């Protein structure tokens, strides 16, 4: 079995995670973790839909920010995709998508403040980077023949609109609407830093232990996501897109002087800003590196590797829940419900809930990341196995799982897992804001201390780490000849 490169790679990653576990800070520090968990579930089954008058507004704002942000992102991403063959554009796109929506929001908050633009750009910018990459891949796969047959002298734009776009339009549309669902999740968590979306109220209810209120918000959010196919229709899309910007709320007016100040003063390293010596700058930088960046990097990497392996394990355990090769309809329906819930809940919210219940350590983060990402991969793999037709005398139960299905889906399973590696890393960094000592923790601390110079350096480091992991993941996928489709 070890002669398969895919198996060797799997065990290598398993080994790395085991080593990581030795160094990781895994613990339940709460005296009575199950009591709170019980209270939480009690809250979810006894939702209180009438406690906050803000509930409807929260839903409206969540949708409005998602639509506006994703629309802007897709338009910008499409334009970038047109010039994606330029190296500088590829690098720019990789960079903007390497920074998580929440970090973008934290940056914009510093100079736009609580203006709707903060939330819109926080979604639009990283999404533009992702759209640029995926759109350009889709465009590259368009049939080239019609383009070759055009009469000489056809304008570039005409050629593009007639011979290139129509062929891939369906895939662009499918991907964009898929991304819209991702946008809802992004929009929801922006509330955690103060924008008026669901996350804002969720944070307030949770932190006060109002679990019935939190339960109501979560249920509404699941319903919102699960019903997307019914209320987002191609015909209605223009209405939503045009309407969305008007429902972002007022926020506070932008003071443009703040924008200039942010870029010309705030993010300039303090020693330079205060005209101190180069030696001071060196001290400043080494202090930042050794006391914040390196510990943050270490924790981020350790947590990512552990979460990656647990994600894989969970996906392998979860896919039979919805696979047509196991169990009856009742099991499959409940399996679907479970997977819909875990994959619709943003990792950030899961981690937030678990941190409340189990206390601070890497454990809640690992479980949150594994649940969410494992849910996504488990869903995709489960769907894939349902399309496999087994011979009628195929073995059943565990033998069916190990001999018939796993060998057939293992490659695409690994492809999804490696694809999500970079996504898990991005989320890991973000979870630092909740108190796990990853890069996000130090970024949040710097911002809380109004030291944007430090925050920017740390965000830059986080972005570079992400780009590195992305490249590594692509290299490994290339070596193992794994192909996959983009997920979020």
């Amino acid at each position, binding site marked *: 079995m070890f002669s398969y490169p895919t198996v060797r790679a799997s065990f290598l990653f398993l080994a790395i995670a085991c080593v990581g576990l030795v160094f990781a800070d895994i613990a339940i520090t709460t005296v009575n973790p199950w009591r709170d968990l019980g209270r939480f579930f009690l809250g979810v089954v006894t939702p209180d839909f009438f406690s906050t008058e803000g509930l409807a507004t929260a839903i409206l704002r969540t949708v409005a920010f998602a639509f506006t942000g994703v629309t802007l992102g897709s338009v910008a991403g499409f334009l970038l995709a047109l010039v994606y063959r330029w190296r500088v554009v590829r690098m720019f796109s990789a960079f903007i998508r390497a920074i998580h929506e929440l970090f973008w929001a934290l940056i914009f908050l510093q100079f736009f403040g609580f203006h709707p633009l903060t939330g819109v750009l926080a979604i639009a910018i990283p999404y533009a980077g992702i759209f640029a990459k995926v759109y350009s891949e889709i465009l590259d796969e368009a049939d080239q*023949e019609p383009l070759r*047959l055009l*009469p000489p002298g056809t*304008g570039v*734009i005409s050629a593009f609109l007639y011979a290139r776009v*129509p*062929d891939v*339009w369906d895939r662009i549309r499918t991907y964009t609407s898929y991304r819209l669902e991702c946008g809802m999740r992004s929009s929801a968590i922006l509330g955690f830093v103060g924008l008026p979306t669901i996350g804002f109220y969720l944070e307030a209810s949770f932190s006060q232990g109002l679990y019935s209120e939190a339960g109501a918000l979560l249920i509404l959010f699941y319903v919102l996501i699960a019903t997307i196919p019914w209320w987002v229709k191609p015909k209605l899309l223009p209405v939503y897109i045009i309407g969305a910007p008007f429902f972002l709320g007022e926020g506070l007016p932008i003071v443009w002087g703040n924008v200039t100040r942010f870029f010309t003063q705030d993010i300039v390293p303090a020693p330079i800003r205060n005209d101190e010596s180069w030696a001071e700058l060196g001290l400043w930088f080494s202090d930042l590196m050794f006391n914040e960046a390196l510990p943050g990097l270490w924790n981020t990497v350790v947590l990512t590797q552990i979460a990656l392996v647990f994600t894989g394990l969970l996906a392998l355990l979860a896919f039979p829940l919805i696979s047509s090769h196991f169990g009856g309809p009742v099991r499959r329906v409940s399996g679907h419900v479970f997977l819909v819930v875990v994959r619709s809940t943003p990792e950030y919210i899961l981690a937030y809930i678990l941190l409340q219940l189990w206390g601070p350590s890497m454990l809640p983060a690992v479980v949150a990341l594994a649940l969410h990402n494992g849910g996504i991969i488990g869903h995709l793999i489960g769907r894939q196995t349902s399309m496999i037709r087994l011979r009628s005398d195929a073995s059943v139960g565990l033998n069916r799982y190990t001999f018939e299905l796993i060998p057939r889906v293992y490659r695409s399973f690994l492809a999804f897992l490696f694809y999500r590696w970079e996504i898990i890393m991005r989320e890991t960094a973000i979870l630092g804001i909740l108190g796990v000592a990853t890069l996000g923790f130090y970024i949040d601390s710097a911002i809380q201390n109004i030291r944007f110079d430090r925050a920017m350096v740390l965000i830059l480091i986080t972005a570079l780490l992400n780009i590195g992991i992305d490249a590594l993941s692509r290299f490994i996928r290339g070596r193992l000849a794994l192909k996959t489709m983009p997920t979020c």
Partner: protein
Amino acid sequence: MTGIELSEITASFGGERVLGPLSFAVTPGEQVALVGKSGAGKSTLMRLIYQQSNGGATLIPQDLGLVHALPVFHNVYMAQLNRHPTWYNVCTLVRPFQRERREIMPLLEQLGINEKQWAPVASLSGGQRQRVAIARALYRNSGMLLADEPVSALDGPMAHTVMALLQESYQTSIVALHDIELALRYSHRIIGIQDGRIALDEPSARLSEADILPLY
């Protein structure tokens, strides 16, 4: 009117020569049929000739090169994209102008696909798609036609109608044909390809089916 002259052209695929070296010239006003069994190198030759024409010729490739998501009308209109400014093309994409509708409609009528004018190509049958590609070639109306098995999916009478239409609109043409009868009837000259080389090159009038059959 343009012709074409090829000298010592070759083509290789995966390090193996699949065509040539071969040379021949087609003078303006000459209608050539290219015959030979499949895999002999006809399609490759077609591509090379098209490349040499720098897009000046009209090509109907074997796989037709249609944009499946666009309606029949727009696929035909694409043959004249270069004659209009960009804004005009963009408007046409949204809502075609009367002028082009009047131009394209008769072509589609002749080919029996006028009812499908606004249907996306993806919804058409193989034979209907082939006729769309032919309508596009007719609408393009450049000096020279290169067609690779343009009637392979059409039934007898329609195949003749199409060949006649093509012959009428293009004085100069090179048409690869599988059907020997059609080749003899709709060309001045027949070039037979075998194993990537020219095995036969005679005026059609001097040939009979029996002369061509050995190529297959």
